[in-house]
């Protein structure tokens, strides 16, 4: 028996006992002696998988496949390592290749390889589903925020629009219902647009509210109201022709 063969079998014994560290070391020694034996690479890859050494397991499988491209075990282990690293597409690709080889060789590990394919697909889907859900949630939140913001904008616009329509009563002449430009005040304390009340007085020299005698000379400008009207109109030009 060759040296490498001896080391390999000793490695297998340790592997069986579950001592993957020793097994891995023994396979490594065997490979120093016989670096072109594909079997040693898959043996060591298997130990490394058990030790969760995913990257170095991949290195072994790839080394094996360079020597023996259709190595079923190499593809199978490669799939497992990739899956552990969440490289779902690679994992599925190698599981699928392992499966094809398995079928061709009528290998007894077919059910394991089939299960691996399913595992790859499921984990891939789970992962994508998680991402989808996260994205959906993010999208939902994003749009909820946008809709909320939009509502606020519309609400604000609506309030402004409604505010626009409100012409304060004090600025409106009771005769023309127009916005006052030159308000004059009568003896009763009520103010009217000068042009409107003069028009009324031409017809009837009475106070519109009390019907008490009222002459044009009784009217006084209401300066404070005029100023208030001017200022309101400056801020609300639309009110000029409400």
């Amino acid at each position: 028996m060759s040296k490498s063969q001896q080391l390999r079998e000793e490695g297998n014994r340790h592997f069986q006992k579950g001592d993957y560290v020793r097994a891995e070391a023994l396979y490594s020694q065997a490979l120093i002696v016989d670096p072109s034996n594909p079997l040693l690479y898959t043996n060591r890859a298997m130990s490394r998988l058990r030790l969760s050494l995913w990257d170095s397991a991949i290195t072994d499988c790839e080394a094996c496949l360079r020597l023996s491209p259709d190595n079923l075990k190499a593809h199978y282990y490669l799939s497992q390592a990739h899956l552990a690293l969440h490289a779902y597409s690679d994992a599925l690709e190698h599981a699928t290749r392992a499966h094809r080889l398995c079928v061709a060789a009528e290998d007894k590990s077919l059910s394991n390889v089939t299960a691996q394919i399913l595992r790859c697909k499921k984990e891939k889907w789970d992962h994508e589903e998680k991402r989808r859900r996260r994205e959906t949630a993010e999208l939902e939140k994003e749009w909820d925020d946008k809709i909320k913001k939009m509502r606020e904008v519309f609400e604000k616009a609506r309030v402004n629009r409604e505010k626009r329509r409100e012409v304060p009563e004090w600025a409106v002449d009771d005769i023309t219902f127009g916005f006052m430009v030159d308000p004059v005040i009568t003896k009763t304390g009520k103010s009217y647009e000068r042009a409107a009340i003069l028009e009324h007085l031409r017809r009837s020299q009475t106070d519109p509210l009390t019907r008490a005698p009222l002459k044009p000379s009784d009217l006084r400008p209401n300066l404070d109201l005029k100023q208030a009207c001017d200022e309101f109109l400056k801020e609300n030009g639309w009110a000029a022709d409400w």
Partner: protein
Amino acid sequence: MAGFATKRLGKELSKINSNSLPPGIELVSADNFEEWFLDIRVLDNNPLYLNQIYRLKFRFSAQYPIEPPEVTFVKLADRPIPIHPHIYSNGIICLDLLGQQGWSPVQNVESVCMSLQSMLTGNSKNERPAGDEEFVRANRLRPKDIDFYYDDNNV
């Protein structure tokens, strides 16, 4: 001052449309700024006017509201002329605030309707004005040109 009436009536109309009229008063039509129709009814149980609706016609001149509107009741199949000592059976109303002297430009369609509504509500006399038949037969004047003698301000 031209254009008074149109502008003022436009504003009255938009106020009516946005705030609506008081109970018992309804705008029937306001298709132009010359003639509007409104329905009024009394809100209490005055037996003279119970379950009746009355149609009012407003006619506006270009000088409205400096000049009063011409306001009359209109007789239709389901709109009688209300019985009242100041309302002639042809619908002409003798009310000082609608006359040349009593009118004030601060009155408006709504306030006139309310005045007429309360004029009916407050009445208990089941009678027409004195000389109603003669007046209805002989009168050719427009209501605003009739020189009513407001002899009884309690009605």
